[in-house]
Every structure is written in structure tokens, then in C-alpha cells.
């Protein structure tokens, strides 16, 4: 209180202080310093990636001197006739796609079942299972990677490779599906199902004919979210890879410092486009759904309020 009184007369004395005061004085005005800071931050986070994308189109070999536009580094991924053709790039792209596409249906099916089961099942087991489901979200990936690596090589006697990677990807994406689906389940509420059951539907019928259609947007968007997190994953893919299962992130990891040329940037750009595209689709689906049943917030805001 005293500070407010003390600064009040000064406001009239110096115009500079007055201007400063009007920056901070009005609690609902936009302080310019914060605005500049925020935009600088955003440029800092986005610009390096944009530059990396730009150099995937470089006509020269350099990753720091732009010599003109060309798509030769994209051709170097799949065109065997290209002079810079690198036969390790396309297999990495295909391995990433294969894993993501296989992870999608498995993780979504398991996760949706788990979410519905946990939301509707009242019992002591439910809270334990709920707790179990949250754990993968807070476990550092290296711990998950090490643990699966050790059990595959010591107990399940499972050869490391694509199958092991698939099992790993499903395990860490499962919880995301549960979170997305559960959010929608709470928004829908139990009324529709109970009405169906009062009218004589069995739980299975209520699920199939009432709940699943209502959940469709959440299921569909989980599909795309799983795709994006699977294609971006590095640690678990690397720990569960022996030979011939190099994914794009593994390829970037091993080649970035030494053998890197713009074709690596091209590969990374393709990966980034794929995951951004699938997330955009997921957001659009959630937004459509929100318009009908939603909280009044946009899907982006919902995502920002994503809570574990």
C-alpha cells in the first residue's frame, strides 16, 4: 500500500517514468517488454528448425551456406539414380512408418478399453490400475528402455528388433490414449449409456451402439496422436534395436555429427511434417467434437490444459 502512495506523485514528474508506469500501471494493458520477450522466445524456438528445413533444399552439400534451391537431397532418399543416393535413408523412413502404423491400432484398442474399463469399473482394482496407467507417463524413457532391453534379453528371450520396438512403442503410447479417451468419457457422462440400459440394452450393446459412436472422435484423434509420438520416439527404439531396425531418429542420432549432409535434414523434415500433420488432424477432430459437446475452449487450449 505504501509503495503505491509513494510512487503516485512521481508519475507526474517525469514523462519517462510516466510512460513506464502506464506500461505496468494498467493491469489489463499489454506490457511491451513481455510481448517482445515472448516473440523473441518463439522465434528462438522455431527459427533453428526452419533453418534446418531450409537446408534440406540446399543445392550444395553445405548445411551452413545456402547455395540455391534444389530437391536433390529428397531424391537422395529414394532415387537410386541420384548421385547422392544413400541406401540407409529410405529403410529408416519405412521402419519409422511401419512401427507407427502398427502401434496405432494396437495402442488405441488397448487404451480405449482400459479407459472405458477404468472409468466405469467401481472397485479397489480400478484405482490400482489407474495408478499403474499413470506410471509410464512419468518414467524417464531411458528407464523404460533399459528395463525392456533387460527383460527381452534375459527373461522373454526375445530377439531385439522390430517386434521388440513395437512392444515398446505400444507400452509408452498406451497411457496417452487412456488420457485422451478418459477426458472425453468424463465430458460425455454416463447418462446416455444408462438411458440405453434402462431401455433394455446390455452393457455390451450400450457400449457398441451408444458409447463407442460418442467416443469416435477421441478414438480417432488418439490414433493420430499415437502415430506422432511413435514416429518421434528415439530412446526406446534405440534400446530395443539390434540390426536392421534403424528408425529416422536413430539415423539422425548416429549421422548428425559425422556423416551429416542435407539429405539427413530432408529425412528429418519428412518426419516432422508427418508428425505435425497427424497432430493437426487430431486437433481438428477434437475441435469438431468440442463444438458439439465441448468445454467452450479451443482444442489447442484443451491440449494446453492437458493434465495427468
Amino acid at each position: 500500500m505504501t509503495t503505491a502512495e509513494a510512487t503516485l506523485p512521481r508519475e507526474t514528474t517525469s514523462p519517462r517514468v510516466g510512460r513506464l508506469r502506464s506500461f505496468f500501471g494498467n493491469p489489463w494493458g499489454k506490457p511491451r517488454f513481455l510481448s517482445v520477450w515472448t516473440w523473441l522466445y518463439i522465434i528462438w524456438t522455431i527459427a533453428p528448425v526452419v533453418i534446418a528445413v531450409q537446408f534440406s533444399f540446399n543445392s550444395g552439400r553445405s548445411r551452413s551456406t545456402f547455395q540455391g534451391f534444389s530437391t536433390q537431397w529428397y531424391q537422395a532418399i529414394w532415387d537410386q539414380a541420384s548421385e547422392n543416393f544413400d541406401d540407409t535413408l529410405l529403410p529408416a523412413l519405412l521402419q519409422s512408418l511401419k512401427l507407427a502404423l502398427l502401434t496405432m491400432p494396437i495402442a488405441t484398442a488397448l487404451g480405449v478399453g482400459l479407459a472405458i474399463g477404468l472409468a466405469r469399473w467401481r472397485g479397489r482394482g480400478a484405482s490400482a490400475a489407474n495408478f499403474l496407467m499413470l506410471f509410464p507417463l512419468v518414467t524417464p524413457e531411458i528407464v523404460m528402455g533399459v528395463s525392456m532391453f533387460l527383460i527381452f534379453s534375459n527373461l522373454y528371450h526375445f530377439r531385439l528388433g522390430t517386434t521388440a520396438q513395437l512392444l515398446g512403442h505400444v507400452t509408452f503410447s498406451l497411457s496417452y490414449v487412456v488420457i485422451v479417451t478418459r477426458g472425453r468419457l468424463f465430458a460425455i457422462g454416463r447418462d446416455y449409456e444408462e438411458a440405453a440400459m434402462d431401455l433394455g440394452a446390455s452393457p455390451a450393446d450400450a457400449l457398441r451402439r451408444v458409447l463407442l459412436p460418442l467416443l469416435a472422435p477421441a478414438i480417432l484423434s488418439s490414433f493420430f496422436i499415437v502415430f506422432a509420438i511413435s514416429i518421434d520416439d528415439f530412446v526406446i527404439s534405440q534400446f530395443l534395436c539390434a540390426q536392421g531396425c534403424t528408425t529416422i531418429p536413430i539415423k539422425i542420432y548416429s549421422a548428425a555429427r559425422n556423416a551429416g549432409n542435407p539429405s539427413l535434414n530432408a529425412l528429418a523434415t519428412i518426419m516432422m511434417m508427418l508428425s505435425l500433420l497427424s497432430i493437426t488432424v487430431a486437433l481438428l477432430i477434437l475441435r469438431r467434437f468440442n463444438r458439439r459437446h465441448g468445454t467452450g475452449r479451443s482444442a489447442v487450449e484443451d491440449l494446453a490444459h492437458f493434465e495427468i
Partner: protein
Amino acid sequence: MPAPAGGIVGQRRWYYPALAAPGIVWLLLLFIMPFYAIAAVAFGGRDQIFALPIPAWNPLEWQYDTFSATAREIVTSGGLQAQFIRTLVYVAVSVAICLVVGYPVAYYIARYGGRLKILLLTLMIAPFWMSYLMRMLAWVNLLAVKPEDPGLFNRLLLFTQVVHDPINWSSGSVSHLTVILGLVYGYIPFFILPLYAALDRIDKSQLEASRDMGASPASTFWRVTLPLSKQGILAGAVIITLPMFGDYYTPNLMTASPENTMMGNAIDLALQGGQGQQPKGAALTLLLSAFIGALMIYYLVSVSRAAKEAQR
């Protein structure tokens, strides 16, 4: 158990657990069991001839020599101790920078986003959905130093006359800064998001009340906004601290120098370096998990304390 309204009670009782069962079994077999495998390998023995790990699945057969030797190596001097201390310093400095850089951003978007809020949020969230490796690659491109090529960032510094000779980012004391830059760049979006959510939740009438009562904007910030966002800061710090402690790819990509390795590198090295090292790698992973677990518990206790205080 009281009968739920409607439906056939007997049928309902098993129906929902059955839906959840495949997911639960999956997590038990591929999340809980593997976790147990870390302990079994860490506390197991080793084949003398082939140096293969012999996991001890029965807790009664556990032996603790590898584990205690590894733990001792961290506490007393040696390479592991240096790596552990370096990890602590890197993480602490990175979290501090994330707070200083990220708080104004989260604050601005939550309070003054206005019509641009959705755009700002989208731009803020975008890095989430770019692969971490892609984002590191971007910096490797900018900083990579080869004799013939100083890198784009150096050229900017030379051009603006900030430096007169190109800086080698991967060696000497600068390399620590390079790794910290990588860590901050990689994890700051994950810090800002929960912080934004906490700031956005603050009821504006509380700020108005504080101003009406005569508090200056600064003291409103220090005495109302900041305490109300404390949980968001803590949540953000925990969310980025957990993966940072297990990070090994950021130092390897940013500098690839043994001067910059973290705990994750020690684990990675032990496990990729042949089967004989598995027990040591497992012991390190257990120690790391225990450390992280302690942090997590501290966080959960503070959350529940804050919730209790809010109820009062």
C-alpha cells in the same frame, strides 16, 4: 457393493474389468515386469566364463556387491562421481534458465494473449510435436564446427562483431554452455505448458481485488500471482527434470565430448557396451530411478499440502 442404477448387475460386475484387462495385462508384462528385471539383473550374478549376466529372479538370492560398488563409485571420487555432479549442475542450471526465460512467456500468453492467444499457444506447442532429435539436429547444423566451416551461428556472431574468431562450441568450457543450451532448447516447451495452465487458471478477480486494495502491480505479482503459480512452476520443473536426468543424447549430439557426459551416458555406455556390463548398467538405472522417485514423492507431497491449504 451397492447395485448401480439400471442394467444387469451380475453382468456389469465383470464387464468393465474385462474391458480394462488387456491393457492392464500388457502394462504388467511390459512395464512392471521389466522394471523388476532391472532389479534382478542389478542384484544378480555374472557368469565367470562368458561374462553373461545371471539375473536373480528370486529376491532371496539377491547379492548386492555390484550395486554397492556402483553406489560407492558415485559417492567417492571417480568418473561416475564427476558425471553425477555434472548431471546435477546441468539440470539445475537448465531448470533455472527455463524458469527465467519461460515464466514471462507463459505469463504473457496467459494474461495478455488476447486475440492472438490461439496463435501464440499453437506456436508454443508446436515444438512438442517436432521430434526432439530433429530439434537437436537443427542446433548441430547451426553450431557444427569443421575446419572449413564455422557454422551459421558463428557467422552471425562474426558478422555482428560479437566475436572475432569463430568459437569451437564442442570443447573447453564453452561446451558446457552448449549442452545446457541444448537441454534448455529441448525441454523448455514442456516447462512452459504446465506453467501456462497454472497462470491461466488464476482468477482475474483476485488480481483486481489486490489492486483495489491498493497493492502496486509489482506487489500484486509478488504476493498474488507468483504464489498462485507456484504449483505450475513446480509441475513444470518436475516434468523437465525427470527426462533430463535420463538424458544421454543431448550431450552426445551437441558436443559428443567426454567432458560433457551425464548419468544417462554412463547407463547407455554400460548397456550398449556388451553383456558383461549389464549388472552395472542396471544398478545405475536403479539408482537413477530411486533418485527420481524421491523427487517425485517430494513433488506429490507438496501438491497434496497445497491442496490441503487451498481447502482451508
